[in-house]
C-alpha cells in the first residue's frame, strides 16, 4: 500500500506539523517573530509543492492508503490514523495548502504592526491549523476526521481570539467554539452510533459495506442525521450559522483561510466524502437540501443589509455553503464539491482583497470607504474579479460550479430549493456589487445616507496601530502577490471550465445557463442603479422591504434566541443545580451534623459534674442489674 504518491500527501501533511512543533516548543525562536513566520511560510510552501505532486499522482483515480495503529482495545486495533489520498482528497489538499500558503505570506504584511511574540504566536496557530485541516482532508476514518475536526475548531477559536484583549474578540471566539461544539456533539454521537452499527471507523471498509448493502438501514437515518449535525455547526447551516459573522473579529487573513476557504467547508467536505453513506438515507438528504437552500436565502438577505465589509463576505460564505449543501442534498455531491473548490479560491481572494482595503482605510465599515479604485487599482481589479466569480458571471470560476449546483438541484427534482437558489443568485450579485460600488467606485460623499448601520458595532480598524494619515495605496508585495495568484486562479479556473467541460452526472436544461446569467446580471444592474448611478433611491429600495430589513438588521432574532438559551437554560439551570448542591444536598449533610452536635449538647447535661449524681446512677444501675439477674435471667 505504501507508495510514493501516498508519501507526497504524507509529507504535505507533516510539514506544517513540523513547523508547529518547532514554533511551539522552541520558545526563543517563536518570540523572534519574523524568522518564525518565514519558517512557517517555508514549510507551507513545501507542503503546497508536495500537495500538488500528490494531486498530480492521484488525479487519474489512484488511491493510496497509509495506516498506522493508533488506539488498541480488546487486543485489537480499534482505530488507526493515516492518510487516505485519492483524487477527491488530494485536490482538496492542494486547495488547503495553496490558501494556507498564500494567507501565511499575506499575513506577514498584514500583521506587520504586531509585536514579534504575537506574530510568532500567530504562526504557531496557523501551522497547527494547516496541519489539522490537511489531516481532516486526508482522514482515512471517522475518528481521525473528528480529531482534526475538533483541532481546526480549536485553531479557529484561538485565531478569532488572536486579539484576545478585545472583549468582542474574546466573546466571538468563545461563541464560535460553543456553537460549533454543539454541532460536534451530534457528530460525535453519530460516529459512536455508526461504529456500533458497522463495526468500523474506516471509510474504505465502511464504503465496501455500504456498497455491498451490508449496512442495515434500520436506524441509519438517525445516525446520518447526527453526523449531519456536525456539518451544520461547522459549515454554518441554519440555525447554527450565527457564529460565523462574529468570527470576523479575527484578523482578516484568518477569515480568508478558516472562515471562507477551508474550515467552514469541512462540513460540506465530510458530506461529500461520505456521500455513499448519505445516499442510503434519502430522507436525511432531503433535510440537507432544504436546510441548505433556506440557509442560502437567509444569509443572502442578511448580507444585503450589512455595512461591515467583512460581515457581507461572511454572510455570503454562509449563503454559498448553503448552495453546496443543497447540491449534496439533491444527491449530486460532486457538484457541491466543485463549488467548494472554486468558492475556496475566489472567496479567499475576496477576503484578502477586503483585507487590503481595510488595511488601507483602517476600518471595516463601507461608509469609510469609497472611490478606492483610483487609489488602489490592483486591489480593485482583483476584488472585482472575485466578485464576478461569486456572482456567477461566465468565464469566471464561480460560473460553472454555480450553474452545476442549480442544475443538480433541478435534476434532483427539488423545485422549491431551485427557485430559492435562483433568488439567492440574484441577491448574491446584488449585495456583492453593492460592496464593489460603495467601496471602490462611488465617491464617499455619494453614499453618505442610504443605509443605516447594519450591526450595532461594526468591527473597526483591524490593523491596530497602522500609520494614520498616510495616503491610501495598494498594499506591499507580500500582500499583493497572493491576491494576484488567487485572481489568476479564479480566471484560470473559469476559462479552463469554459473550454474543458467536466463530465456531468446530469444534463442541464438548455435554458438554465442563460437564466442564471440573466439573474446575475439583473442583480448587478440593480446594484449599479442603486449605488452607482443613483437612478433608484437606495433608501426607497430599503423602505420597500422594510419588515424584512428590520428583521435582518436584528439578524432575525436568532442571536437573541441563542443568547436567551445560554442565559436561561445553561446559566439559569446551572445556578439552580449549584444552589441545590450547596444548600440541599450538602445541606442535608450539614443538618445531620448540626443535629449530631445539638443532640450531644442535650445529652451531655446528664453529666452534672456532681459526684453524688454519679453514685446515684451507679446504684440504680446496680439495682437494675440485680433485678434483671434475679428475674429475667433466672
Amino acid at each position, binding site marked *: 500500500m505504501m507508495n510514493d504518491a501516498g508519501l507526497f500527501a504524507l509529507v504535505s501533511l507533516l510539514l506544517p506539523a513540523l513547523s508547529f512543533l518547532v514554533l511551539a516548543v522552541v520558545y526563543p525562536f517563536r518570540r523572534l517573530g519574523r524568522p518564525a513566520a518565514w519558517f512557517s511560510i517555508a514549510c507551507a510552501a513545501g507542503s503546497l509543492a508536495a500537495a500538488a505532486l500528490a494531486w498530480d499522482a492521484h488525479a487519474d483515480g489512484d488511491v493510496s492508503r497509509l495506516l498506522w495503529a493508533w*488506539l488498541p482495545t480488546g487486543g485489537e486495533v*480499534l482505530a488507526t490514523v493515516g492518510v487516505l489520498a485519492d483524487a477527491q482528497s488530494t485536490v482538496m489538499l492542494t486547495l488547503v495548502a495553496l490558501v494556507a500558503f498564500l494567507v501565511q505570506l499575506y499575513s506577514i504584511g498584514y500583521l506587520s504592526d504586531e509585536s514579534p511574540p504575537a506574530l510568532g504566536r500567530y504562526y504557531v496557530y496557523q501551522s497547527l491549523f494547516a496541519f489539522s485541516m490537511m489531516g481532516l482532508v486526508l482522514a482515512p476514518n471517522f475518528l481521525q476526521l473528528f480529531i482534526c475536526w475538533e483541532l481546526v475548531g480549536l485553531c479557529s477559536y484561538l485565531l478569532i481570539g488572536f486579539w484576545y484583549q478585545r472583549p468582542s474578540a474574546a466573546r466571538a471566539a468563545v461563541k464560535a467554539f*460553543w456553537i460549533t*461544539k*454543539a454541532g460536534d456533539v451530534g457528530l460525535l454521537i453519530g460516529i459512536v452510533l455508526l461504529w456500533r452499527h458497522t463495526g468500523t471507523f474506516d471509510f474504505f471498509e465502511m464504503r465496501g459495506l455500504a456498497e455491498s448493502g451490508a449496512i442495515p438501514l434500520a436506524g441509519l437515518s438517525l445516525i446520518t442525521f447526527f453526523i449531519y449535525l456536525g456539518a451544520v455547526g461547522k459549515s454554518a447551516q441554519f440555525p447554527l450559522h450565527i457564529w460565523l459573522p462574529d468570527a470576523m473579529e479575527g484578523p482578516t487573513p484568518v477569515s480568508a483561510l478558516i472562515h471562507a476557504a477551508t474550515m467552514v467547508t469541512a462540513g460540506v467536505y465530510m458530506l461529500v466524502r461520505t456521500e455513499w453513506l448519505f445516499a442510503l438515507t434519502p430522507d436525511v438528504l432531503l433535510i440537507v437540501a432544504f436546510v441548505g437552500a433556506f440557509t442560502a436565502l437567509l444569509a443572502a438577505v442578511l448580507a444585503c443589509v450589512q455595512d461591515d465589509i467583512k460581515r457581507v463576505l461572511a454572510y455570503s460564505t454562509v449563503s454559498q455553503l448553503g448552495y453546496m449543501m443543497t447540491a449534496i442534498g439533491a444527491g449530486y455531491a460532486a457538484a457541491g464539491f466543485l463549488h467548494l473548490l472554486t468558492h475556496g479560491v475566489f472567496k479567499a481572494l475576496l477576503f484578502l482583497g477586503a483585507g487590503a482595503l481595510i488595511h488601507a482605510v483602517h476600518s471595516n465599515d463601507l461608509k469609510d470607504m469609497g472611490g478606492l479604485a483610483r487609489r488602489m487599482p490592483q486591489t480593485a481589479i482583483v476584488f472585482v474579479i472575485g466578485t464576478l466569480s461569486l456572482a456567477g458571471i461566465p468565464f469566471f470560476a464561480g460560473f460553472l460550479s454555480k450553474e452545476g449546483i442549480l442544475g443538480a438541484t433541478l435534476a434532483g427534482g427539488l423545485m422549491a430549493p431551485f427557485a430559492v437558489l435562483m433568488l439567492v443568485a440574484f441577491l448574491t450579485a446584488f449585495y456583492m456589487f453593492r460592496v464593489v460600488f460603495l467601496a471602490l467606485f462611488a465617491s464617499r460623499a455619494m453614499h453618505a445616507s442610504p443605509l443605516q448601520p447594519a450591526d450595532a458595532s461594526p468591527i473597526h480598524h483591524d490593523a491596530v496601530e497602522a500609520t494614520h494619515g498616510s495616503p491610501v495605496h495598494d498594499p506591499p508585495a507580500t500582500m499583493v502577490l497572493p491576491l494576484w495568484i488567487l485572481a489568476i486562479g479564479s480566471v484560470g479556473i473559469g476559462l479552463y471550465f469554459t473550454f474543458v467541460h467536466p463530465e456531468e452526472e446530469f444534463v442541464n436544461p438548455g435554458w438554465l445557463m442563460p437564466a442564471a446569467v440573466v439573474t446575475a446580471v439583473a442583480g448587478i444592474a440593480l446594484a449599479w442603479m442603486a449605488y452607482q448611478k443613483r437612478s433608484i433611491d437606495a433608501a426607497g429600495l430599503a423602505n420597500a422591504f422594510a419588515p424584512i430589513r428590520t428583521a435582518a438588521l436584528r439578524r432575525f432574532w436568532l442571536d437573541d434566541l441563542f443568547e436567551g438559551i445560554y442565559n436561561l437554560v445553561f446559566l439559569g439551570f446551572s445556578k439552580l443545580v449549584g444552589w441545590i448542591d450547596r444548600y440541599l444536598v450538602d445541606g442535608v449533610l450539614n443538618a445531620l451534623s448540626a443535629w449530631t452536635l445539638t443532640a450531644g449538647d442535650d445529652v451531655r447535661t446528664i453529666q452534672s459534674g456532681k459526684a453524688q449524681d454519679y453514685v446515684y446512677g451507679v446504684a440504680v444501675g446496680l439495682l437494675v442489674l440485680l433485678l434483671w439477674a434475679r428475674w429475667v435471667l433466672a
Partner: protein
Amino acid sequence: MNIPVLSVMTWAPLVAAVVVMFFARHRPLLVRWASLAGATVSLVASVWVYWAYDRAAAGFQFQEEIAVVPSLGISYLVAVDGMSALMCLLTSIIIFAGVFASWTVKERSQEFYALLLVLVTGVYGVFVSLDLFIFFLFYEIAVLPMYLLIGIWGSSGEVRPQGIFGWAMGRTGVGTKEYAAMKLTLYLLFGSAFILVGILALYVANGSQSFSFLVLEQVQFDPTLQSWTFLAFYIGFGILAGIWPLHTWSPDGHASAPTAVSMLHAGVLMKLGAYGVVRVGMALLPDAAVDWAWLVGTIACINIVYGALSAMAQTDLKYVIAYSSVSHMGVVMLGAATLTPTGLNGSVFQMFAHGIMTGLFFALVGLVYEKAHSREIFKMGGFATMMPGIATAFTIGGLSSLGLPATAGFVAEFLTFLGAWSSAYQWWLFPAVIGAFLTSIYVLRVAKQIFWGPKSEDPHFQHLPDAVGTEWAALGILVFVLVVFGVMPSLAIAPVDTATVPLVERLTGR
C-alpha cells in the same frame, strides 16, 4: 531482577519522610531536596515497572510476598498488572510535580512534606498490594494525613448560609478549613467502614484462610453475599470517587486544601476510589457487578451532568475545578459500569488523564492565587497579557478537560462513549456527551473571564508575574504528559488492555 522494585517504589517516599522529619530540622532546602529525591526514586521505579511490564504475558508481575500473620492469612503481597502500573505512574508524576508545586510553602514545610510523602506511600501501597488487609491499611494511611494537611495548611473561604438548611451551615462552620478537613475525614472514614465490612465478609465467607486477592479471585461467592458486599464496596470506595450524592466533601476539601494536596487529592486519591471499585468490587464480585451496573452507570451519568452544571455555577476558581472533578469522575465510573473493554479502558485512561489534568489545574490555580491573591473568577480579567505561560497551560488543561482531541482527555472520553453505547444501557451515551459539551461551556467561560479580555481595573491585578523557576517544572511535566498521552494513547491503553480484557471476560462470561 532481584531488586524488589515495587517495594522500593512504595517505601521510598516514607524513607524520604523520615529523613525530612528527623534530619532536616530548620534546613528548608534539604527538606525539598530529600522529598524530591524520594519522589524521583519512586518515579524512576514506576517508569521502569511500566516499561518492563511484559504485555504479552499480562497478569500480575513483579510479585513480592512476605508472610505477616500466617495464622490469619495476612501477608505483604504486592504485584502490578497493566492497570495498577498506569496508576503508579500517575501517582509518581503527580507527586513529582507536587513537590515542585509546594516549593514555596513557608509555614512548617518540614511537616508538610513529611505528611505528603507518607500519604504517597499509602497511595502506592493501595495500588500495588494484593492482600486486602494490607490494602486496607495502606488505604487508611493514604486518607488520614489529609486531615492534618488540610486542617493546618489549608485556606478558608466564605459561604453564606442560605436555604432551608441554612441554620445548620452556620452551626457546622461551613467554609472554614477545619470544617473541610473534618468533613473529608469523616466522610472517607465512613466509607472505610463499609470497605472493611466488605473485606471481612469475603474473608469469612472463604473460611478465614487468606486475605489474598489472588485466592479470593478464584472463589465463587454466594450471590446474596456478592450483592450486598458489592454495594458496600461501591459506597465505601464510591465516596472517595465522589459519587453523587456523597460527593460534597470533595469541592470543600479541594477548595480548602493547599496546592500540592489538592493535586494529589483530586489527581490520585479520588482514583483510589474508582480503582477500588474496579479492582476489588468488580473483579472479586463479578455477578454482583453485572447486576448493579445499572446503578453505578446511572449515578455516574448524574455525576457527569450534575457536576458540570454545578461547576458552571461557581464563582470561586477552585470550586470550579473541584466540581469538574466530580463530573470527570462520573466518566470514570461510567466507563467501568459499561462492562466492555472499550469502556473499561476509557475508565482507566480517564483516571490517568483526569489525574494529570486536574493536577495541572490545581497547580495553576495555586500559582494564580499566589500571584493575584484572589480566586474570585469574576474579579479577574485580562491576565493573559501578564502571565502568558500560565494562560497557555490553563488553556491546554481546559481543552483536555473538555475532551479536545490530541489531549489525553479526548481518548478517555471517546472510549467511554463507545463503551456506553455498546453496553446494556445505551442511553448513558447522551448524558455523557452532553456533559462534555457543558464542560466546554464552563471551562472556556472561565478561561475567557480570567485570561482574555481587557486588563482588569483592579489595582491588585496590575503587575502580576508569570510563573518562574521551579514553578515551570510542575506545569511543564504535566502539560507534556497530557499531550504525549493524548497523541499516542496506545502508550497507556496497551498495558491497560491486558488487564481489562480478562476482567471483562470474567464479568460477562459468568
